[in-house]
């Protein structure tokens, strides 16, 4: 058991829904010397990584390389033993709770899609929207015109405009994944973390997802973990290869593929 550290008391006075992320002189996300150990085993070992504003980054690496653990650290789910994580120049993520981190603008999509099957696609998005969460407000609240527009935009982006009034339960596996991405988008994140988005998707769905993620980058930073190499090749500008908890190589897909250490790790696997 690692000691339990209370981070929630810090920055209590900040309104996390309206914090601005300062990327004027640097990256969107900055991780330095992150080490995470589980019972002596180092899942992350002095990991250092930066993600630029608007960048689309793919993270690859063999099973157990620490990819998911890295996302857990960013979202506050796992606390590192040492290291620093900053969002923009000012926000020290290690001092914030999971909820605060999500409200400040980091959206994470888990591997298994969970959408609300008995609600319409639109309603799924409305529920995920930023805004009051109390029971009494929920009884009377109506979407504002702006919010409707946001939802329409997101529906358009994720390609579910035609299905907007269908129950989410009737969507295909791929469509559910997109809807879940949409549920993150309505919260207007600045950094989107996506873990294995195309697992279980058909070929057409995979292509559509590649388009979607490419389109999402630019306005926000997107970090994608994926095993499907063809998919990674189709979207990636920069690829980071993780191995045994640290960065093994970084660069364009072709650079990375020619790197002898990467070849060794993948072939030896």
């Amino acid at each position, binding site marked *: 058991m690692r000691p339990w550290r209370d981070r929630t008391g810090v920055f209590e006075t900040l309104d996390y829904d309206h914090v601005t992320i300062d990327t004027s002189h640097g990256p969107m996300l900055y991780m330095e010397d992150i080490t995470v150990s589980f019972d002596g085993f180092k899942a992350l070992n002095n990991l250092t990584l930066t993600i630029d504003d608007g960048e689309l980054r793919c993270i690859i690496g063999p099973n157990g390389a620490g990819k998911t653990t890295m996302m857990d650290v960013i979202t506050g789910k796992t606390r590192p033993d040492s290291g620093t994580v900053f969002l923009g120049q000012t926000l020290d993520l290690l001092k914030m709770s999971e909820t605060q981190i999500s409200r400040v603008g980091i959206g994470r999509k888990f591997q298994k899609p969970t959408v609300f099957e008995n609600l319409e696609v639109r309603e799924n998005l409305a529920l995920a929207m930023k805004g009051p*969460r109390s*029971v009494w407000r929920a009884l009377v609240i109506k979407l504002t015109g702006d919010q409707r527009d946001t939802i329409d935009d997101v529906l358009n982006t994720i390609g579910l405009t035609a299905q907007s009034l269908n129950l989410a339960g009737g969507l295909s596996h791929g469509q559910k994944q997109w809807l879940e991405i949409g549920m993150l988008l309505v919260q207007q994140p600045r950094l989107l973390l996506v873990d294995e988005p195309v697992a279980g998707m058909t070929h057409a769905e995979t292509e559509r997802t590649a388009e979607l993620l490419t389109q999402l980058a630019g306005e926000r930073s997107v970090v994608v973990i994926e095993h499907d190499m063809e998919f990674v090749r189709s979207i990636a500008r920069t690829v980071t290869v993780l191995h045994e908890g640290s960065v093994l190589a970084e660069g364009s897909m072709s650079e990375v593929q020619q790197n002898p250490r990467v070849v060794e790790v993948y072939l030896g696997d």
Partner: protein
Amino acid sequence: MLMRHLYNDVGGNILLALVLASALIVPTCNLLFPDDSIFHVSTYTVTVLGKYLCFALLALALDLVWGYCGILSLGHGAFFALGGYAMGMYLMRQIGSRGVYGNVDLPDFMVFLNWSELPWYWMGFDHFWLAMSMVLLVPGTLAYVFGWLAFRSRVTGVYLSIITQALTYALMLAFFRNEMGFGGNNGLTDFKDILGFDLLSDNTRAALFVLSASALGGAYIGCRAIVNSRLGKVVIALRDAESRVRSIGYRVESYKLWIFTFSAVLAGIAGALYVPQVGIINPGEFQPLNSIEYVIWVAVGGRGTLYGAVLGAVLVNYAKTSFTAILPEVWLFALGGLFVLVTLFLPRGVVGLIRRKGGGT
């Protein structure tokens, strides 16, 4: 969005029309047509139909928590009975000196127990409005406290059902005791009048019928508004994927708590309307079996549609009235069999069957 929902609720609109029509027609046929007219509806029938309306309201309340929020309450009979007792206490005090012992202040059973004064918790029940606020407050408060404890400790599923069942059982045992001051196993009965109107008169019966219909119609509209609001969507979402709802920032416990409490209040109102029509309330209403029967009504009608619950309550009770007239000892078996059949073959109840046949949504 709201208009679309109202427009789509065909079943609900039919139900409201039927409730309104019966509120107008049944009392008219009872009061205006002479006994020998073919249009005459007997006072007995008015009372039976009035009872159905109360049961329908109870089923509606149960469907809100079970069908929409996923809380299978096997203790709704307790809230119904508590509402009934609050009304019964008012009616008891209205008897005044007309009881067997002629005591102005004490109900007969208290005189019989040699009590010399009214227990504190009976104070004020001679005031109609105080008693009526207790009809809402007592079930509401109990549900709030119970729910607060249960939901905060994240008790869900079967465990929750079992403790709701334990709740109603415990209350039954308590109300059976004479010392509790609620008339022991005889309960409260021999009521004379309500707000000065004779409970046995046709006019009073008709008025109670109209009130029950209005309560059902009003509650239906209220529940539908809740279900169609953001609140309702959150509740449906948490029924299906609770942790996901929590992860997008909703406090799941408070949502469950308020729905549960509101539902308990509706059940209390149903109980309060039921008691003056049947003329008695006793601890039997707390029987665990009753609460299970209410769940069967909702399952038979079709959970998660609101109007399905109403339909189920009426259908099952009609069957019960007919059955018990011919073969009373078979009723429980028939009910059990019905539940098994519905669970196996009609997971969405009669409503599901109608929708499938109609090919509609």
